[in-house]
């Protein structure tokens, strides 16, 4: 038996004038999952979320929530609630009144409201905060009130519009974990949109990577990272070293990737050679191995100069330049301190297994803007 679907979107399309913000999207979200939509600004993710919430009417397609078509149903009548990007807590009310607001609109009165609000405050870790003014709360506390205000209404789906965006880095890291724990605890389906890939990866059961109105890939975070389906996903999710290369054949009919400087790299055996004259090759920093022995014959090894050591604790990396090249590559530094001797301006060797690289035709690459 299939798991029940909280949310089912079919052929959803939204145009603004000639601009297609959301382009014929179809996807399902199972009950109780944490589902993220990850994409750069302007990719249409907010539009998608607002259509699910009911603030925008789709031009085509349907939104089903718990198998009920939401066509023509206004936001206040839908079993979904939205946590706004700027949170939109009502400044003229205290914490308690903010959370009780929706219950009162349903006509609930008396001790029942009080009980529900207090349970919810407890659940988000803010007991005794009911009488506080919204302005007295810290960023993280506001966050939790905004979520509590929606959860108290027991929505089928909770929509979150980049709610961590306004927080500072440290708090954001903390809230990621909090939010995930909260979602597991309450078991509500979360649909979360963000442009921050780390938020999406850490919290989600499934991530959809969105680009100019459509999904590039919808998968678990692990699959997204290890087997990206497109050049866009490869670049958007995690860090990558990119090589723009041409396909060449040597005297003995073996195929190589050749850079514009004339370097030749071995290719993975599984690489599909069909009409791929020029393509991009991507290698993750952690797939780059420093001063490797040659474990297999087609292992790529190049000489490179260390430009800088980017020390960042557990996430330290080297910035290197292959010799006779202007390109910059990022190489992960293993944490066993075995490479502590490496200094800037040293010459080292780096290598990678062609099977750890991914390859995409350049023509395949959808427009990927740098200003994400």
């Amino acid at each position: 038996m299939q798991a029940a679907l909280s949310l089912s979107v079919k052929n959803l399309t939204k145009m603004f004038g000639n601009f297609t913000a959301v382009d014929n999207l179809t996807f399902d979200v199972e009950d109780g999952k944490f589902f993220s939509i990850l994409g750069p600004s302007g990719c249409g993710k907010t539009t998608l979320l607002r259509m699910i919430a009911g603030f925008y009417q789709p031009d085509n397609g349907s939104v089903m929530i718990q198998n009920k078509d939401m066509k023509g149903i206004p936001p206040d009548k839908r079993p979904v609630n939205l946590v706004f990007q700027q949170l939109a807590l009502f400044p003229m009310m205290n914490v308690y009144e903010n959370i009780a607001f929706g219950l009162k609109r349903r006509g609930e009165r008396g001790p029942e409201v009080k009980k529900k609000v207090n349970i919810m405050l407890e659940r988000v870790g803010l007991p005794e905060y009911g009488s506080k003014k919204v302005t007295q709360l810290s960023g993280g506390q506001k966050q939790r009130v905004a979520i509590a205000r929606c959860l108290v209404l027991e929505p089928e789906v909770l929509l979150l519009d980049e709610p961590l965006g306004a927080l500072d880095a440290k708090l954001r890291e903390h809230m990621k974990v909090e939010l995930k724990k909260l979602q597991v605890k309450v078991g509500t389906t979360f649909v979360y949109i963000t442009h921050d890939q780390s938020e999406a990866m850490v919290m989600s059961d499934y991530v959809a990577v969105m680009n100019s109105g459509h999904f590039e890939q919808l998968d678990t975070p692990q699959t997204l990272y290890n087997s990206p389906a497109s050049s866009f996903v490869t670049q958007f999710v995690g860090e990558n070293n990119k090589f723009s290369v041409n396909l060449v054949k040597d005297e003995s009919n073996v195929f190589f990737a050749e850079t514009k400087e004339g370097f030749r790299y071995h290719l993975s055996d599984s690489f599909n050679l069909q009409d791929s004259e020029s393509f991009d090759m991507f290698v993750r920093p952690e797939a780059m191995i420093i001063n490797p022995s040659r474990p297999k014959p087609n292992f790529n090894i190049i000489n490179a100069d260390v430009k800088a050591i980017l020390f960042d604790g557990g996430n330290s990396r080297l910035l290197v330049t292959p010799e006779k090249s202007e390109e910059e590559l990022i190489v992960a530094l293993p944490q066993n301190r075995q490479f502590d001797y490496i200094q800037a301006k040293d010459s080292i060797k780096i290598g990678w297994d062609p099977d750890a690289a991914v390859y995409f035709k350049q023509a395949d690459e959808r427009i990927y803007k740098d200003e994400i």
Partner: protein
Amino acid sequence: MIRTLPSSKIYKAGFRLFIVIFLVFLFAPLIITMILAFNDSMFPSLPWKGFTLDWFFGKGPKIIGLFNDSFNLRGIATSFKVAVSVSLLSTMVGTLAAFLFEQENFRFKGALYFLMIAPLVIPGVILGISILLFTNSLSIFIEDTFGIYLKFLTPSFGLVVLGQFSFITTIVTMIISARLRKFDRTLEEAAANLGANRFQVIWFITLKYLRPSIIGGAAIAFLMSFENFNTTLFLVGSQSTLPINLYQQVRDGSTPVINAISFILIITTSIVAVATLNRGGSRKS
């Protein structure tokens, strides 16, 4: 209900109708007044008897147009002189007051601030009377004690300027303060750090920053002074300002020459207002 929320057609149409009616309400009297300035009739009323410019340029004997009407021309000239004086004076003092209340700390600042905004809630009539009474008593006192008769303390041009200045300065102060409050004071500190003294800091940094609000404040002061009636009424001497002149004419039966004056005033104030608003608009963006 708002742009981003779906709302019914009736709601939108109803709201639009409301705004249209509101705009008609706003503009009907002004437009009628302007149109009737060109009616070839002895009364500012319908029926339409044909287009004429006589109410602007007529040389008499039947119609004396505005530009040959020395009584109203004098009124306009006086109002203009008053408005220029008030505008200059209140912009200067208003700028100083903005600095005083935004950048200085001193005892009784709260009390002085309260006094500064008090003219907002003092009816103009009362302000006019109090200044009239005070200057009258003062001039009697000075004449009795020193035997000097100070003419400017009796209702006159100078008193009108002082009376208008007393409350228009509050408005100007608030306009300039609003901008000064947003000023990043580290700029001043940076300038001081680079060797500028307090005077140079204010002259080169702060006043440059305040310039749009100073110009805006001066324009608003000019318009408020030009049209002021309530305070002026009690302080005016032999030189009447335009609003006082107009009031007498309107009260005692009017000719379309008032429409002609209105036409010119509406057009010029609109231009000044739009220019000021545009400056304000571009400043924000």
